[in-house]
């Protein structure tokens, strides 16, 4: 086995171990450098790469074990607790707020007027299409929550974290999405001045399920995928 084959074998052995991409890249980069040095030093000795560097499978197993060991520290636990337990609620609310604010800014800029002086014709149009606008905003809320869930899923996959962290973040996002009703006020005219987005929390289960279904489905997809891959990685890399 030459140095290129050895490095390729390490790469193949690392692939199912569910380690962060950046971690793998750094390890492979340093191993490639080490091999270059080794080749320069032992060019005439014809030493087997495997004898000096170790079995590629063993290197992958050591990398997995050491990475999991470092991820068990209190600092790592605190970071995961903050990111996956405390952050989902403010993250979702802040994303909604940001997008709502951007929409209002675009709305005002396009009309070239302030919300307080919305022209009569536009008020009439808005009143006529209120239900469509309302569902449009509801879709926006659900999509934003789903995108936040996707971001968590990508983070869990990227850092090779336990699927339970993904489940926690998903349930928290769903918890804050399902009962939400957002009201946007666009004029000062009483009775025709606001749009409410959200099915409303009335205690009934159907509206809650309807509103939380998409982020829940997205989150559970990541949970299942991560659980399956991680279990496979643990078996192959332990």
């Amino acid at each position: 086995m030459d140095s290129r084959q050895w490095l390729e074998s390490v790469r193949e052995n690392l692939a199912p171990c569910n380690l962060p991409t950046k971690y793998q890249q750094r390890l492979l980069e340093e191993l490639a450098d080490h091999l270059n040095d080794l080749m320069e030093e032992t060019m005439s000795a014809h030493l087997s790469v495997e004898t000096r560097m170790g079995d590629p499978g063993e290197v992958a197993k050591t990398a997995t074990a050491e990475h999991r060991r470092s991820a068990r520290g209190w600092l790592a636990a605190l970071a995961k607790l903050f990111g996956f337990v405390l952050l989902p609620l403010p993250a979702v609310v802040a994303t909604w707020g940001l997008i709502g604010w951007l929409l209002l800014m675009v709305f005002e800029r396009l009309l070239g007027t302030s919300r307080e002086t919305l022209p009569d014709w536009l008020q009439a149009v808005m009143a006529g299409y209120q239900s469509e606008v309302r569902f449009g905003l509801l879709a926006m809320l659900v999509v934003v929550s789903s995108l936040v869930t996707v971001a968590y899923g990508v983070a869990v996959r990227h850092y090779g974290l336990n699927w339970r962290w993904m489940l926690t973040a998903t349930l928290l996002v769903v918890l804050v999405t399902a009962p939400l009703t957002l009201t946007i006020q666009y004029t000062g005219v009483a009775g025709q001045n606001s749009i409410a987005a959200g099915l409303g929390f009335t205690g009934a289960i159907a509206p809650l399920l309807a509103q939380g279904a998409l982020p829940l489905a997205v989150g559970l997809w990541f949970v299942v995928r991560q659980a399956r891959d991680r279990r496979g990685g643990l078996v192959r890399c332990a």
Partner: protein
Amino acid sequence: MKRNRGNSEFLNGVPELLILHLLADRPRYGYELVRAIRETSGETLEFGEGCVYPILHRLEAEGLLESSPRIVTGRKRFVYQVTTSGRARLIECRNSWSNVVAGIARVLQGGSHGQPAVA
């Protein structure tokens, strides 16, 4: 803060002791470090050199080492050096190692109360 570390854990941490000790001497990149282990141990320690890097990365993640990319002999290398926490851990590791060695020596010599364990 005193760390309560069992001997079995410590024995698993021999590479950690060697790495911290050699890097406390001066910063080194991976290949230099491996060569230093081989040379200073008189090539008595056999290990897969590829397994050193995951340990270095873990020690870095724990804040015991820090690395920086530098150009050494015309190539970019990750040069490792011991942090203040790393130096504190090194002292702990050395003390634990001394205790283990002393304990084993006492057993081999028969202890203070019993008969020699090894004839």
